[in-house]
């Protein structure tokens, strides 16, 4: 889906957005419709129906359209789908059809074998995999960036020019810094979690190579039951996991004159340091602050436009997100933080809008908008827990298993910079498949 939302359409759904969010405070940031590149409305995600299939708390109850060999009423299944295919590579023409995934969301595919605690794969797995709801989705046109920019740099420079035209950027001193310090939590629904979106819709955001990689992941979660969640082996979580509900719990925000810092994490730590007023070095392939080395969580610069904090992150190490998709070293983001305040002017949450540019992975820029609810002041809350991930799960014949201390296992050392998750799938589960050859190192021969 390549259609972009144009401004008039955005304004037309503004009333829906405002109605879709509880409380007036959270709508404040979205009313800023005048900027060249921030605050434009996004169709409501809160309250969107769960696509399924799955059951339990992550799905807000049981959301299964049909299970154990049954087919939802009115649906004609495809002759072959992700649960019955022996070689998903041959099914490329079907990947954009929701029926190929039995109308499952990415989370629904993960839940088939019990990924979230309740198995729904049925009595004849994997062929008896459950169905999600074909009439539920969060469309791609809601997800792609509504802004006219082709690159993060272009976007950042436009926002900076807009700010300068108003006399900015705002130069805060230690005494008049924003009152944002505190503990926050991400409580708002996000399409990126894979709960309210069809798998085929998520795929439509991706380039052909990254579609292939995503379907490979979905196949080995739904069909072969070989999930390779990054943090289960204490691998890095990667930059894009910081938007995933299961990867971050409490967020600690510290605001200083020079750096605004977010730290969060569950299985690993996510550190975002926004360097205020600095510029990227532009003499290499990727804009950066430090040496020419990709960073797992990138490097970030930013500036203040009144109460809005505008940032640009670059120099990110490409990686993957389960239930999401892979992204490349070319990923860059523009992120805007704006405060939501109650009638008394007290900060209640921070609206976090992110526009993600990755020309290698995404067919066009995509967007996420969420509200970070303030839980308390740093002087009130429990100390932040820094995570050290202790590995207890090891891959055995391509599947994760919790291992007995003292056990001797056969272990293939993965190439951590060569899609280690895929190495296991390809070695243990794809020997019979006709995997398209990538462009190798030796194409000159």
């Amino acid at each position: 889906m390549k259609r972009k939302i144009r401004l008039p359409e955005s304004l037309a759904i503004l009333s829906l957005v405002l109605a879709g969010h509880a409380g007036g405070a959270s709508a404040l940031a979205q009313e800023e419709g005048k900027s060249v590149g921030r605050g434009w409305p996004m169709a409501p995600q809160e309250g969107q129906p769960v696509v399924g299939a799955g059951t339990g708390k992550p799905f807000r109850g049981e959301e299964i359209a049909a299970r154990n060999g049954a087919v939802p009423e009115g649906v004609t299944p495809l002759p072959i789908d992700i649960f019955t295919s022996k070689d998903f590579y041959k099914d490329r023409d079907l990947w954009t059809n929701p029926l190929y995934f039995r109308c499952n969301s990415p989370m629904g595919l993960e839940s088939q074998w019990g990924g979230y605690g309740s198995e729904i794969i049925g009595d004849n797995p994997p062929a008896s995999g459950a169905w999600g709801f074909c009439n539920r989705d969060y469309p791609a046109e809601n997800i792609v960036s509504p802004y006219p920019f082709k690159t993060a740099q272009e976007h950042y420079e436009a926002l900076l020019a807009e700010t300068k035209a108003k006399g900015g950027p705002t130069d805060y001193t230690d005494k008049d810094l924003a009152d944002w310090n505190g503990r926050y939590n991400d409580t708002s629904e996000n399409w990126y979690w894979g709960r309210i979106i069809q798998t085929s819709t998520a795929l439509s955001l991706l380039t052909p190579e990254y579609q292939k990689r995503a379907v490979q992941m979905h196949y080995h979660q739904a069909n072969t039951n070989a999930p390779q969640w990054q943090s289960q082996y204490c691998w890095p979580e990667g930059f894009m996991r910081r938007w995933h509900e299961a990867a971050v719990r409490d967020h600690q925000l510290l605001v200083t004159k020079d750096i605004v810092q977010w730290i969060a994490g569950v299985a690993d730590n996510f550190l975002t340091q926004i360097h205020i007023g600095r510029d990227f070095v532009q003499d290499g392939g990727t804009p950066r602050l430090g040496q020419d080395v990709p960073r797992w969580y990138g490097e970030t610069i930013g500036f203040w436009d009144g109460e809005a904090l505008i940032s640009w992150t670059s120099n990110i190490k490409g990686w993957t997100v389960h239930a999401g998709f892979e992204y490349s070293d070319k990923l860059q983001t523009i992120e805007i933080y704006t405060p939501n305040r109650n009638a008394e002017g007290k900060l209640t949450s921070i609206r976090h809008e992110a526009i993600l540019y990755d020309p290698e992975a995404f067919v066009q820029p995509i967007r996420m908008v969420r509200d970070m609810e303030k839980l308390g002041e740093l002087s009130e809350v429990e100390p932040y827990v820094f995570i050290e991930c202790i590995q207890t799960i090891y891959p055995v014949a391509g599947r994760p298993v919790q291992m007995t201390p003292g056990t001797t296992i056969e272990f293939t050392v993965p190439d951590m910079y060569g899609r280690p998750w895929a190495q296991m799938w390809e070695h243990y589960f794809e020997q019979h498949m006709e995997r398209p050859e990538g462009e190798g190192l030796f194409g000159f021969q």
Partner: protein
Amino acid sequence: MSIWKIVTALGSAGLLSASLAPSGNAHHSFAMFDDSKVYVFTGVVVRINPDANHLQIYFAPLNEERKSVLRDDVGKPVVWAVEMAGSAEVAREGVTVNNFKPGTIMSVGMHPLRSGQPAGDRQGGLFRCPDNTPPEPGKHCDAVGGHTTHGEGVLPEPKGAPEQKG
């Protein structure tokens, strides 16, 4: 790709790790567990690992008479493990290193690993017997006067049982 054999010397005892009732912050898929089976144990804690992602308790199950622990063919105690939510989360339930020291007698239900290895993911509440007070034969800590309950739910009904000796 080369295959390297490595030895994972993960601890001194023949112990295993386990899992937890799925929380909103799981860091691994729970598809490794067989949720068609529920094992219920009463056993003696041998170690507790307060990992950030999942607190794990290692325990030696007691026999049906509740007189001694189960042992393997060479006489070593059989050790199972149960994984639950992150350490900070279960600390709010009173499941801590200090409250479940080695020697504590406890009862717990779990979905076991599909692989057959002795570990599982906690289901329901965790029940702690009073110190040095095992239950009556065939009973669990929830039937012992003075027990404490940790977390929500009762002990689940067993579905299947592991092979046990002793």
